[in-house]
């Protein structure tokens, strides 16, 4: 089947990217001037202790052996041991991943859904106000530093009008009862996720509106209109449906950028997630930790991109059936 061949191709490609990222990860952390283990070597360690430590981190072997082992470890998700805590990086990441996922998914899904909805809506209601609104929102996303807006919102709702929590994912201690716990989480999510939505939805709205308007110029839309289809069916069934593939590509293409945003968001709102872990690790020069976090982030992006390819295939019959539209 064409689709499966397409998928196989994208899978091979995804693996290739992953492999490159692993290699890259390996290389850059060997570029560090000096000895990477310096940070954990306490001066009172004896030279045997130091050698032991190097052995522990596999740094005593020749580079190519290290590399092969490294690739193997990455595949096995053996991300090594953190310099600063001595714990397995993967365990530390596991503790943080759910938080990141919650924040990331909530804000991303909300951003995209709200953005696209507004885009579709304004495309159907062409006029000065909707034009201005969407263009303004798009410019806002593009030109305003997201972290600044987040700081302002934090200051406003955390400090001036302290109605929202300024840090963390849950209250300490967590309330009892599932419902209250969910409510508590939502309360903590409002600022970080909400601010992400505020700064992010505009570009989606603008892009959706633009592509929708372009799609509405297409002959098949004219045909659909001539067919006497209802306005909103044309909008959703024909226009939106046909601009979905590029939007989906874009949605997933935006992931790396969103991940970057997540790093900042987590820092600003002291969100106990992978992004914050990464920045902390780099600050502390905890290389295995930084490497692991980066690997996880890159892996997430690669996986999401692959997911995008799968979904893309579903929404664009040209891919699913053949005549590869993406080549």
């Amino acid at each position, binding site marked *: 089947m064409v689709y499966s061949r397409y998928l196989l191709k994208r899978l091979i490609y995804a693996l290739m990217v992953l492999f490159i990222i692993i290699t890259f990860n390996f290389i850059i952390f060997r570029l560090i*001037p000096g000895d990477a283990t310096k940070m954990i070597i306490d001066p009172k360690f004896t030279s045997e202790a130091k050698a032991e430590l190097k052995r522990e981190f596999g740094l005593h072997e020749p580079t190519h052996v290290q590399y092969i082992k490294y690739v193997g470890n990455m595949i096995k998700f053996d991300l090594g041991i953190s310099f600063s805590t001595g714990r397995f990086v993967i365990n530390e990441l596991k503790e943080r991943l759910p938080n990141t996922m919650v924040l990331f998914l909530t804000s991303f899904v909300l951003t995209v859904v709200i953005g696209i909805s507004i885009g579709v809506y304004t495309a159907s209601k062409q006029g000065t106000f909707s034009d201005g609104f969407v263009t303004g929102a798009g410019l806002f996303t593009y030109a305003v530093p997201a972290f600044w807006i987040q*700081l302002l919102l934090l200051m406003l709702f955390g400090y001036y009008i302290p109605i929202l929590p300024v840090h963390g994912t849950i209250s300490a201690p967590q309330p009892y009862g599932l419902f209250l716990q969910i409510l508590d989480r939502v309360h903590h999510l409002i600022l970080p996720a909400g601010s992400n939505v505020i700064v992010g939805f505009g570009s989606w709205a603008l892009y959706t509106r633009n592509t929708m308007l372009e799609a509405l110029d297409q002959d098949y839309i004219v045909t659909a209109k001539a067919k006497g289809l209802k306005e909103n069916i044309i909008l959703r069934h024909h226009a939106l449906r046909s601009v979905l593939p590029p939007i989906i590509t874009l949605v997933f293409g935006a992931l790396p950028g969103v991940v970057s945003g997540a790093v900042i968001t987590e820092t600003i709102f002291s969100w106990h997630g992978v992004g914050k872990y990464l920045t902390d690790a780099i600050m502390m020069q905890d290389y295995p930790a930084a490497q692991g976090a980066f690997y996880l982030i890159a892996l997430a992006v690669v996986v999401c991109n692959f997911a995008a390819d799968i979904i893309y295939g579903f929404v664009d019959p040209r891919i699913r059936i053949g005549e590869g539209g993406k080549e």
Partner: protein
Amino acid sequence: MNKYQLRVETGVMSFWKRYKGKPLGMIGLIIVIIYVFIAIFAPFLTPYSPKQILLADRIAAPLWFRYVIPKYNNAPQTVTIGFDSPLYEIKDMPVSHIIEYNYSAPKTFSLTFDCWVNAPFHSEAGFECLIKTPEGREYSLWGKSYSSDSDKQVVRIDSRDLGLKQRLGLTIFEDPASKIFSSRGDYSLIFRPNPGFGDTSTRLYISNVKLHIPGLVHGILGTDHMGSDLWTQLVYGTRISLVIGLSAAVISVAVGTAIGIICGYLGGVIDEFIMRAVDVFLAIPVLPILIILGAILGKSIWNIVILVSAFAWMNTARLVRSQTLSLRERIFIEAAKASGGSDIYIMSTHILPNVLPLVFASMVLLIPTAILTEASLSFLGFGDPRVATWGRMLHNARGFGAFTTLAWWWLVPPGLAITFLSLAFVFIGNTINEIFNPKYRERL
């Protein structure tokens, strides 16, 4: 309307003619010119240097708050009073000086003077330094006895000094400055010899008397946590942002264009390879990788420029490549080939000029991206620590108490500066796109 009837004019003049008609483009241009002006004339726009500290109290509010916000109506500006005469010779009468203080209470003050005595051996020469409030309360700030001649001594009295607090009978968390300067009016600074200052030959000399009261309001934008002028930082930050934005955009667009044209035109394995590389680069989350590389390669401005460019060329390359691909299929390219034009001739004469408008627009649109990236890095604390940038201002604001002091005036200006500059470039870029590439609509 036939797509071919699209008027494509060449020449700077005709471009300018059409550009002039676009209000947003002109607004953008004017804003950029203002920024450039600020960047160039930074030293003339502010009397301070961005690294100068203790210009006022920490996190002082802008001066104009005095006229706008009632709370700051009487907030003190930095007051430094040096006394007229360089040297006082005091025999047995106190010397006093009137200080007019018409502000609300400051947080701190300091007083410095040099003093020395000429006193016979075993005398009990001594004096104290005090401040008398308009109400007549006296606060003794310093006192010392001499039993013989002394060398010149620099005395520095600071309201934050724990010893002073003790001397004034305050707890360590109480604040002498606000206690002493709690009312408005004429204060007196008194140097009072001990009763029985000694015999007639005893002389107390005091010079270089300087009272310094750091202001709670200062300058156009107030001060940061180190008492450094925020307006100055903002002005000098303009330089860095423009330099980073422009150079990163130019580098990455140049690289992207070259790669795009070569890939698009030559195609084949090189194209395949580079485009895969582009895909890989695009799949890498930029900020984390910049943080990592920045931490490894060092945090200089130029490293940041290079790193930002290293992760910003891909979109241009893709864009130019796809444009080149379609140009390559355009018949006029083949026509040039049919006339005997070489590849290099065609790339440089036919393809490059045709992608330039696109490239130019995307370069302008890349500038804000570069500025924002640098700001993000600096904000996270991964910027060049030696230069004042807007991102760093925000970093400091966040790290050093803008929130808890609710110092919004510290937080708002750098963000606005970034926003306006980015917007200006977006306006310009969009206008260029509108003129040159009306068909081309990128997601902003």
